[in-house]
């Protein structure tokens, strides 16, 4: 395990030295919250069943995950496009786990920095903490766990580059599903019942809606449901990642030979 964590540590160091990207995300986070807070103030969030202040906090909490998870599929694509994967495949350590643990390092660094940005902006815009401040505290470990599972699925998307060279279309579908079925901007409660049922059957609602809603409302049973579902999706993801990887390395055509 130590050698895998070394990849997370070096990714943290690398991310720290490459500050430009994090600063851009920091600014983007603030703009999103500012725009949507104006929107909710104009439209009114009572119909959704949340207080206006909690609605902004809901968005800040979902965006914390969405803006923090690394785009591992682009890293894998780049390795295949440049042929760098050749270096990484000859090491006595599975390539996909290397990418996953590097992704974990990047994720944790971003979550730390963006927590200040997002929650700071939300506090500034709403003028206070969410209705249940304890829920926000609870959300730190829960949100990190949910982000780790999203990162796992990001790695799986990246593996499709072994066949397609470019996994961007798959990522595009994934991100849009996160957007809609995950309830990134709007809690699923606002959707028609049939769509809510579909969303709850997918992993996306466990990535964003369930953990955020459970923490905001400080609902123990909803939190338990979120944690169980996340664990189940994590196990499914781990098995899928390993199986797809084993097939993918046999299929791989490395550029430049």
């Amino acid at each position, binding site marked *: 395990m130590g050698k895998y964590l070394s990849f997370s540590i*070096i990714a943290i160091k690398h991310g720290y030295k490459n500050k430009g990207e994090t600063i851009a995300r920091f600014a983007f986070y603030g703009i999103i919250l500012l725009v949507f807070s104006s929107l909710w103030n104009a439209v009114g969030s009572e119909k959704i069943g949340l207080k206006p202040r909690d609605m902004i906090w809901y968005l800040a909490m979902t965006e914390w995950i969405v803006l923090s998870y690394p785009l591992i599929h682009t890293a894998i694509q780049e390795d295949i496009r440049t*042929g760098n994967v*050749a270096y*990484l*495949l*000859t090491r*006595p*350590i599975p390539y996909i786990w290397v990418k996953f643990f590097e992704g974990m390092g990047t994720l944790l660094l971003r979550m730390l920095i963006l927590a200040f940005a997002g929650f700071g902006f939300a506090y500034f815009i709403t003028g206070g903490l969410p209705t249940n401040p304890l829920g926000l505290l609870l959300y730190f470990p829960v949100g990190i766990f949910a982000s780790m599972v999203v990162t796992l699925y990001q790695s799986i998307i990246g593996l499709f580059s072994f066949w397609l060279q470019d996994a961007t279309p798959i990522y595009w579908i994934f991100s849009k599903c996160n957007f809609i079925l995950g309830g990134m901007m709007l809690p699923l409660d606002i959707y028609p019942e049939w769509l809510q049922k579909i969303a709850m059957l997918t992993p996306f609602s466990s990535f964003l809606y369930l953990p955020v809603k459970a923490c905001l409302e400080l609902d123990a049973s909803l939190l338990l449901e979120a944690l169980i579902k996340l664990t189940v999706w994590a196990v499914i993801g781990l098995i899928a990642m390993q199986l797809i990887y084993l097939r993918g390395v046999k299929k791989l*055509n490395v550029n430049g*030979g």
Partner: protein
Amino acid sequence: MSYAVAVSNMTKDFVLKEPAKGFVGNLKSLISPKFNTFRAVDNISFKIERGERLAFIGPNGAGKSTSIKMMSGILHPTSGDISVLGLTPGKDRTQLGYKIGTVFGQRSQLWYHLPAGDTFDLLARVYDLNPKAYREKKNELVKLFEIKHLLDQPVRKLSLGQRMRCEVVASLLHGPEIVFLDEPTIGLDVTAKSIIRDLIKERSQRFGTTVFLTSHDTGDMERVCDRVIVINHGRVLFDDTIEKLRARYIKKKRVTLMTAEEDLHFEARGVNWLEKKPHKFILDVEVDKTPIDEVIATALKHARIRDLTVEDPQMEDVIKFIYRADKE
């Protein structure tokens, strides 16, 4: 005898989708795509003894990189058998990873925004190196490759030559028994090429490391290796010592002279003037008819030489010589 590498009838086919033309063609291709098989490596067999330095050369697209990737376990051969240090690369990739080192020119295993030393520390963990043994090995390689002053600089600030020296050190840290070098000097200037070649050879001679080097630069093979395999279109054209290749096929050198005088001309056996411009002259020299030193001595009698370069023939020319000799 146990060989470092034993390759028998190694073949690699790539299946490529046939590109369609026009809107209708693209539509048809979407429904029933046509595929073509491209044979990159065609039934190659050879053995390499432990400690041997083998150059695997050929022009671009000859099948060099595909072969190296099959021998290091990255690609699976379509048919044939490969044994590297007694292991089957495709099946035993993890075990093999501890015993081999790889250097791929123009690709990098170093973390771009961090000093190379950070990547070295990471690799020590990857290869489960004992901390004391790692420090000793790193110090030895850092001294040999003269990169101590580079260790604390971010990789992005290094020149290509400096970065390649760090890349080679990164590949040797775990003491591999065999090193696969795929175009290690590509893109480097003459001085950097020379440094890399000498260091690879010195390292191999000192520790008995087997070297498998692919290149389209005949200079790499002459300076580093004892034996050479020339391939083209995925097939072996020549497999023997460098001396025999040189004696049979590399009979020409290209000499460029920059002179103080505007004009220069002399006659000598086997000297062919390719280009004459004021102060600059390019000659093809058949070295078995007139040795290079004689050509330079003659030139010095006629003009003051400000600069001169002597180049090996291009790989394509060597291949042409081999084809021609085979036909004759």
